[in-house]
């Protein structure tokens, strides 16, 4: 289906999220939409899918003008959107998820839904158990389920908003294959991303957004530097890897055994040196998060030892780990890392040791201002953290960490951030390593793992690989290990 957007305009308060955007997408194409965080990509897609309404502008499908007020109407017109965070119901079964909101009588025909699901799964090679609970699926599988649901409801235009955030490399390949198949069948696919390499590989054409405007379009062959310039208005380069010094062990793990309701991993051994960066790779839910939380004392291991600076801390609480110089930076910034409703100043007051009983506001504001400058946070001391963009939240979170920590444990340091923010975050982290800090981080981004780690541990199916040297490993090798190929049994 051909999609035409004409003069779409949308304000959020004083922010001009979409500034008279006009674009045409022919049927059978995969249209890439590229731009950094806050460029207005998601807003435009939410307007097209009826989630929000434009202030003005016209949407035409196959040349006919349509009015879309709700997601329901959008799907009637054949437009389905896969949201960044799959909008499904985690505690429900897969089949019930499929049925919610589908047309039909009072008692849904689950058998029919399961049959339809199986047929669609065969077409794309997905394997989701219709009776499984959604919360037990990986993010990638939940996306697959949403795609199937939208197709089942008759979508002919599929919008995907940052679909590769949080899914594994193999799932990403599968997703791309699926999208190509759909486009070949005449469907229109709109792929929203801030990741250059993905858009370049997948899309037939690219539109670049910056600050609410469409600033340019491109067709293959793409020139990466040109796209980057369009996105940011300037050129950006990655810095080089620094060689590793001699080893001075800071963190030691001996025969560690961890377990949760689904997974049991035993005999993890690791010695991390001063100034070293260790990457934890693996599909979502392969145990890397549990391992990292164990290193922080947030989860108690069922066997083995965790040693920090020659002190055995196994079974101690996070408070003892913190005292020993360990700090943990969670992935969900607003849920665990920062406190919604508090300003930046108040965060610094909480994070830093205070003298006396009464808060010295002036001093706190001064320190906050210094950190805002130093960490390039776009915000004021009195700005509430939930009002910051993702990149600025991550910078704030980093600024809040104590300067004297030896061991930084980080979940997804750059998830959802654009290239510029990611490079910046890592430059700060690397600077800390130079000063002797040790970093252990989880990521699903293979490039990030290979580029910034010294060694990588791969988690798969309840097992952990020997540490790999990141310098001599390729993306393909790492991808295969994550997918379980070549893992020692």
């Amino acid at each position, binding site marked *: 289906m051909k999609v035409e957007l004409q003069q779409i305009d949308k304000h959020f308060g004083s922010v001009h999220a979409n500034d008279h955007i006009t674009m045409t997408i022919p049927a059978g194409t995969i249209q890439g939409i590229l731009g950094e965080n806050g460029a207005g990509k998601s807003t435009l897609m939410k307007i097209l899918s009826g*989630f*929000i309404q434009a202030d003005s502008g016209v949407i035409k499908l196959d040349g006919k003008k349509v009015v879309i007020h709700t997601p329901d109407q959008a*799907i009637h017109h054949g437009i389905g959107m896969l949201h960044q965070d799959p*909008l499904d*119901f985690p505690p429900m079964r897969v089949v019930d998820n499929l049925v*919610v909101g589908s047309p039909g009588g009072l*008692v849904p025909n689950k058998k029919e839904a399961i049959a339809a699901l199986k047929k669609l799964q065969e077409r794309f090679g997905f394997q989701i158990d219709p009776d499984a609970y959604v919360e037990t699926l990986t993010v990638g599988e939940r996306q697959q389920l949403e795609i199937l649901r939208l197709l089942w409801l008759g979508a002919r235009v599929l919008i995907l908003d940052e679909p590769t955030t949080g899914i594994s490399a193999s799932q990403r390949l599968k997703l791309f294959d699926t999208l190509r198949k759909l486009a070949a069948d005449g469907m229109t696919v709109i792929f929203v991303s801030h990741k250059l390499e993905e858009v370049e590989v997948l899309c037939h054409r690219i539109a670049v957004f910056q600050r609410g405007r469409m600033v340019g379009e491109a067709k293959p062959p793409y020139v990466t530097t040109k796209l980057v310039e369009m996105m940011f208005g300037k050129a950006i380069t990655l810095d080089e890897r620094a060689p590793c010094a001699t080893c001075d062990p800071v963190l030691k793990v001996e025969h560690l055994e961890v377990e949760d309701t689904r997974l049991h991993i035993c005999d993890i051994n690791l010695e991390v040196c001063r100034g070293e960066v260790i990457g934890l790779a693996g599909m979502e839910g392969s145990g890397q998060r549990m391992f990292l939380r164990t290193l922080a004392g947030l989860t108690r291991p*069922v066997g083995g030892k965790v040693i920090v600076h020659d002190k055995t801390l196994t079974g101690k609480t996070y408070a003892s780990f913190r005292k020993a110089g360990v700090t943990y930076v969670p992935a969900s910034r607003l849920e665990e890392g920062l406190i919604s409703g508090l300003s930046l100043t108040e965060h610094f007051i909480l994070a830093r040791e205070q003298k006396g009983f009464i808060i010295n506001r002036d001093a706190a504001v001064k320190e906050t201002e210094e950190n805002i400058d130093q960490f390039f946070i776009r915000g004021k001391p009195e700005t509430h953290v939930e009002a910051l963009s993702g990149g600025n939240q991550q910078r704030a979170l980093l600024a809040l960490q104590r300067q004297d920590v030896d061991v930084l444990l980080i979940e997804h340091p750059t998830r959802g951030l654009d290239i510029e923010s990611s490079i910046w975050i890592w430059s700060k982290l690397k600077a800390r390593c130079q000063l002797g800090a040790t970093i252990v981080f989880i990521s699903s981004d293979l490039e990030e793992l290979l580029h910034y780690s010294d060694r990588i541990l791969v988690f798969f199916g309840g097992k952990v690989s020997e540490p790999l040297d990141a310098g001599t490993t390729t993306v393909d090798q790492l991808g295969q290990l994550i997918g379980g190929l070549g893992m020692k049994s």
Partner: protein
Amino acid sequence: MDNNILVGLAGVLAAAAPVVFAAIGETFTERAGIINLSVNGTILLSAMAGFATSLVTNNLILGFLVGAIIGALVALLVAFSSITLKQSQVAVGFVLTLMTRDLAYFLGNSFMGQAGPRIPPLNIPLLQDIPILGTLFFKQDIIVYTSFILIVVSQWWIFSTRQGLLLQGIGERPAAAFVRGANVNKLRYLYTMLGGALVGLAGPMFSLSVKAGWKGTISGLDGIGWIALAITIFGGWNPVRVALGAYLFALLQWLGLVLQPSLPNIPSQVLQVAPFPLMILTLLLVNIGNAEWVERWLAGMPAPLRRVVAKVLRAMRTSPPASLGVPFENE
């Protein structure tokens, strides 16, 4: 089995019927994502008003109708202030529960202690002659039968119908329900009022059957609404489990009465009050698996025991609708 015990147990089923109504009503409301804390006051006001209406008109059905309408109207206030005005559901619920309670005592003054109409027992032919089961289930009155039907129908509605799945959806993740075409706020209004009406029916069930009459502050109804709220949580927002909770509570109360003569050393107040802390204890046990210290403690256990305990805790554990008490906006 001793006939006295059977009759006693049948009495437990009857005494629990209003609590079943109130707790299942609250289950519907909370499944939709709204907390209606006015249950306690609503029950008192609708008990008084239902009794007064039936007394004046000599019509039992009208009494129940008035009860349901009062419940729905109080719920409408909760819905309006929380959905449309986006006010705190907890604060509004608290104020309403206090207001409706005092209103019940104030307006009910002139009806205090009067003898009024009462629902007659209705034995079901043939079925009442089944040994044991007949006495337990089929020599009751119409409201007990209705409570049985309510349990089955609400369980079926929530878990087997398209509308029920959508109900789960709007309480769990309203944004996801919205993209599936649900009018989230309209449905929340509807289910809050439906839940309120069911809570409102619990009042006349007391004043026209279980504890017939209106005796003001000594009616013995104050507190029941809070128990119904606790039972909703204990039952994990699942009608069958909620009903079991109501029966457990009624059973504990009955045991308190029965055991009193054989335990003369224990002050009678202890046995009267015992069901309340016991309910709290049960709640605690059911949800203990959520606690972090329990997880830590589990990790220190030997492996086979650990797995068994973890499994049991997981099976008992319940989690509330994820968006309970959170207003929905699509931007």
